[in-house]
């Protein structure tokens, strides 16, 4: 019933030792902090502060919009200097609206923020709402608003809360260090979340390449009713579907959410953020970022205020020792290329990597020899080479029928391909095309209906006008006839 290992997957060199040896350091405040209004999945937050307004640390500066959204809080006290567009941490380099904050260095906390001494006495819904108003989103990288997930899980009823301590991406070690240094806070956060969704049990999965983290978490979890389990260190062990199957034996059905199968999963850093929000009363205003890659002089983990420009952070960490071949936000497998270093740190920035050409180890794409290494590597059981061949031929529908929408984009297939084919790129391109076509088809349906209605209206109006004219003419003719009759009656001849 419980599969002992990961289906498929690859084993890239971890490179964790570059950054996981030293403790987390506090990054100082940059001169300007750029708070993106879109740091989460869902609708962007709307700013509630004006330019020139003074804000305190932890103060609400942008409120959530709609059902799936999250608020934003000031990472430090200071003055709002601008509300303008700034380069988004997105491969396109397109702009995003940010609140520019100039720190005043006083770090004055918002006095309305109050810690709680006994949050487990609160009703579960209250906990969920507090998590939401603290602006907490999934810190593993997905940035889905945590409160939405908690509330829907509470309503559906979940059996198991799983904390993801996998961190299967190479280079990243922020979760590892957090588990070593603050295991009690993570456990407290887990218990809070368990209460918030009324789960029966809590399991924390940690990859076996983190022995110190496993030991620390096991010590902290003693007597708390939290189960710590070691999982094989293989990529993508930390992927939700794969971790759920390994820890509980449940295979999440396609196109369903984990809550539908009675499972809720959150990252360990999210649990720690929940602890800080509820027990300490502090909203989400900073996160731990791994700086790594051979092109950096100094690798390590930093607790960074949100909105810190990447350039400032890297400069503070002693900059580059050679020109990086590529800058990445996240891990090398699923991370995105950064357009430049002006981008700010957002809630989903788990790491900033400066890689050299040797580390990237890429090559020009060659012909596919159907070696099926990708089929063996795919954790979802897809056939990447078949989907890729169909996409190259333009047959997106065939690719979809082969399971394109089940692809989680982990990149194991592209990693292992001996011909260096850009498989995941092809899949994301095809997904974008299919979504585009769906949008266009829906719009065309709508406009067709509009056009039809307009035609009907125009013909109806023309007809009505005709009838009106005919009626008037008929009335005029009758009138004329009556007058003639009357005239004829008056003068008989």
């Amino acid at each position, binding site marked *: 019933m419980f599969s002992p290992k990961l289906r498929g997957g690859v084993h890239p060199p971890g490179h964790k030792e570059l950054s996981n040896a030293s403790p987390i350091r506090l990054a100082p405040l940059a001169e300007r902090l750029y708070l993106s209004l*879109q740091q989460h999945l869902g609708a962007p937050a709307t700013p509630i502060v004006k330019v020139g307004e003074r804000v305190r640390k932890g103060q609400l500066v942008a409120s959530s919009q709609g059902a799936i959204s999250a608020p934003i809080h000031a990472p430090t006290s200071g003055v709002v200097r601008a509300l303008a567009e700034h380069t*988004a941490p*997105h491969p*396109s380099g*397109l702009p*995003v609206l940010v609140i520019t904050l100039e720190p005043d260095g006083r770090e004055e906390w918002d006095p309305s923020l109050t810690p709680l001494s006994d949050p487990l006495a609160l009703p579960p819904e209250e906990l969920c709402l507090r998590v939401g108003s603290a602006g907490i989103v999934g810190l593993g990288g997905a940035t889905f608003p945590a409160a939405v997930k908690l509330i829907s899980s509470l309503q559906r009823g979940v059996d198991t809360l799983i904390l993801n301590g996998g961190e299967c991406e190479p280079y990243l070690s922020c979760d590892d260090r957090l588990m070593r240094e603050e295991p009690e806070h993570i456990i407290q956060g887990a218990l809070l979340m368990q209460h918030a969704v009324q789960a029966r049990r809590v399991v924390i999965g940690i990859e076996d390449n983190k022995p110190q983290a496993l030991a620390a978490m096991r010590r902290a979890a003693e007597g708390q009713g939290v189960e710590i389990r070691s999982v094989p260190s293989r990529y993508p062990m930390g992927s939700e579907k794969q971790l759920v199957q390994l820890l509980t034996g449940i295979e999440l059905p396609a196109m369903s959410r984990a809550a539908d199968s009675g499972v809720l999963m959150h990252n360990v850093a999210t649990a720690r953020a929940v602890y800080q929000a509820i027990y300490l009363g502090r909203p989400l205003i900073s996160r731990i970022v791994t700086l790594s890659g051979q092109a950096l002089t100094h690798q390590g983990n930093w607790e960074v205020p949100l909105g810190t420009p990447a350039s400032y952070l890297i400069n503070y960490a002693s900059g580059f020792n050679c020109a990086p071949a590529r800058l990445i936000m996240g891990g090398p497998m699923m991370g995105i290329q950064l357009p430049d270093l002006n981008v700010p740190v957002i809630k989903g920035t788990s790491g900033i990597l400066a890689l050299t050409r040797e580390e990237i180890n890429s090559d020009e*794409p060659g012909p596919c020899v159907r070696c099926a290494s990708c089929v063996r590597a795919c954790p979802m059981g897809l056939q990447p080479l078949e989907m890729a061949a169909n996409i*190259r031929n*333009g047959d997106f529908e065939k690719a979809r029928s082969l399971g394109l929408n089940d692809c989680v984009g982990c990149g194991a297939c592209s990693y292992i391909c001996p011909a260096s*084919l*850009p498989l995941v*790129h*092809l899949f*994301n*391109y095809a997904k*974008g*095309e299919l*979504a*585009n*076509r769906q949008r*266009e*088809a829906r*719009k*065309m349906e*709508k*406009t*067709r209906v*509009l*056009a*039809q*209605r*307009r035609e009907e209206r125009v013909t109806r109006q023309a007809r009505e006008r005709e009838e009106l004219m005919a009626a008037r003419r008929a009335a005029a003719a009758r009138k004329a006839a009556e007058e003639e009759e009357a005239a004829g009656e008056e003068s008989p001849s």
Partner: protein
Amino acid sequence: MLVSILPLAGLGTLLGFLLGVASRVLYVERSDLAQEIEALLPGTQCGQCGNPSCGAAAEAAAAGELPPAFCPPGGRAVAEAVAAKLGLSLDLASLVEERPRLAEINEDLCIGCTRCYKVCPTDAIAGAAKQMHVVFADACTACGKCEEVCPTECIRLVVVTETLQSWAWNQPSL
């Protein structure tokens, strides 16, 4: 030698005859092709294909007088659907993939003459006499009729600017 030629020739003739009979007896009656093609088109009668209406264009396409990629507002999706319906192969190179466009009114130049909204086939322009007109983006099909009739050239078809929400990955070059 005749012994080998005659039976084979006779067999070929007989089988050919049977095939001919089958093609008539087992013929599949196709429903009105033109109507099916018309159902795939946007239906705004914009005239960009050179035909007076979508129905006329559908008839021409069914008769084989138009290539499958004849509908510019329909884009690639319509071209592929028409090609699939007609059983033709689509020459994607001939399809100029244009960036999507929307009508936009320059409010400084609009005089409120109402000519544009009277010709819009999807009622995408709202306005009244001497009032500022405005275009509803999700109803506009960029057919271009409003641009033709506007006396002050204040309504133009402009390329939609890309945002983070609309951006998508390009096709990888291989």
